[in-house]
């Protein structure tokens, strides 16, 4: 009978959280940029979410869960960064010019999935994060601010810079594309 109770609590949690597993995996996958680390980060996030489930107040389960996924993913990244001596993210340094899309040619509207994925992965992690949340998961600025733990104003400026850089990469890859 205790066994029954046990599974019912797990089921309750799964009913709320598992629908967000694709979003969670996609975010983790773009942040850590490899399949195995992304799986580890998501699995760890699920266990953490389960452990802290009682503290979840039931407003926005997706944002709550994605925040945990985001944190475990950055933990993985920070460890990798330490090994590779990757430079720490600097908003200005990574986008020295204006934040506006005043550059480059046209975009090929038929870019394939792999090209777009590769272009996103070229961005710094903090840009990958806002692009994934806004463009792929359709999060609001407020949700992104909660998940990434930054002010809404920073979401706005970071997203502008991230889009500019992504646009540059995608239009550079296809200089001939003038459709």
């Amino acid at each position, binding site marked *: 009978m205790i066994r029954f109770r046990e599974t019912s609590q797990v089921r309750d949690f799964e009913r709320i959280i*598992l629908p967000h597993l694709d979003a969670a995996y996609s975010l983790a996958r773009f942040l850590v940029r490899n399949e195995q680390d992304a799986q*580890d980060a998501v699995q760890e996030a699920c266990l953490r979410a389960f452990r802290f489930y009682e503290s979840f107040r039931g407003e926005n389960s997706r944002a709550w869960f994605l925040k945990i996924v985001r944190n475990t993913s950055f933990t993985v990244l920070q460890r990798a960064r330490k090994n590779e001596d990757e430079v720490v993210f600097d908003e200005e340094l990574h986008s020295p010019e204006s934040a506006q899309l005043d550059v480059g040619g046209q975009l090929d509207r038929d870019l394939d999935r792999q090209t777009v994925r590769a272009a996103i992965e070229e961005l710094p992690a903090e840009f990958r994060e806002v692009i*994934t949340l806004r463009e792929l998961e359709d999060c609001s600025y407020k949700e992104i601010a909660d998940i990434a733990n930054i002010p809404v104003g920073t979401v706005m400026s970071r997203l502008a810079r991230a889009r500019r850089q992504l646009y540059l990469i995608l239009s550079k890859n296809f200089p001939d594309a003038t459709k």
Partner: protein
Amino acid sequence: MNHQEIQERIHPYVDGELDVANAREVELHLSACEECRALEQRIRALSSVLTASAPAYHAPAALRKNVRAALRKEAKPARQIGWWVFAAGAACALLLLVFALSQTTRAPREAIADDVVANHVRSLLATHLVDVASSNQHTVKPWFDGKVDFAPEVRDLAADGFPLVGGRLDYLQGKTVVALVYERNKHPINLFIVPASTNRAAAPSALTRRGYHLIHWTRGEMDYWAVSDLNAEELHQFAAHFAP
């Protein structure tokens, strides 16, 4: 709004994040300014490329399976007992209390030791050895502010050969606790800090569980549990340096 201010609002405008009044103002400007219109079109072009190419990933079936299995393993019966067994539980608890009183504090200590080892192993297997990675005690200690209801003692033991790696939140005996991570010749040491149930200080004492060494001491109303695969002697040195 001038041209510069409008430019900054085009992204939130396209994202539907502006209120009606602001959106109207941006629209008016767009109809008059070619440069801003070009910017708006590029943002929309990028979004439609991102939508059309559907770059988002899907969770592999193996992950879904692993998560479900891990959750079932994680769910401990003690956390799910319903009210309907409360009466039976209370009766058992009374019996246990009588038993426990005769056993002093040994039994709970054994149970905590098991959990400490389980947490240690999990921290190594999983991807979160630390939440805050820093060898600087003045970075690690403030990180816990507001996350736990006590101020943990964080010491820099690099000079003694136990560099600080970082800290994280963990869960022990139903409570959120502090875990500090130190290292000795690549052997990680987890030091769990938990508010003590008694303010009686206890000198370091050693235990062994599944090949891991543990040292437990109580000091300043805090329980300390150090655990590592390090040999017992070096772990004793660690405890001696942390609580001289």
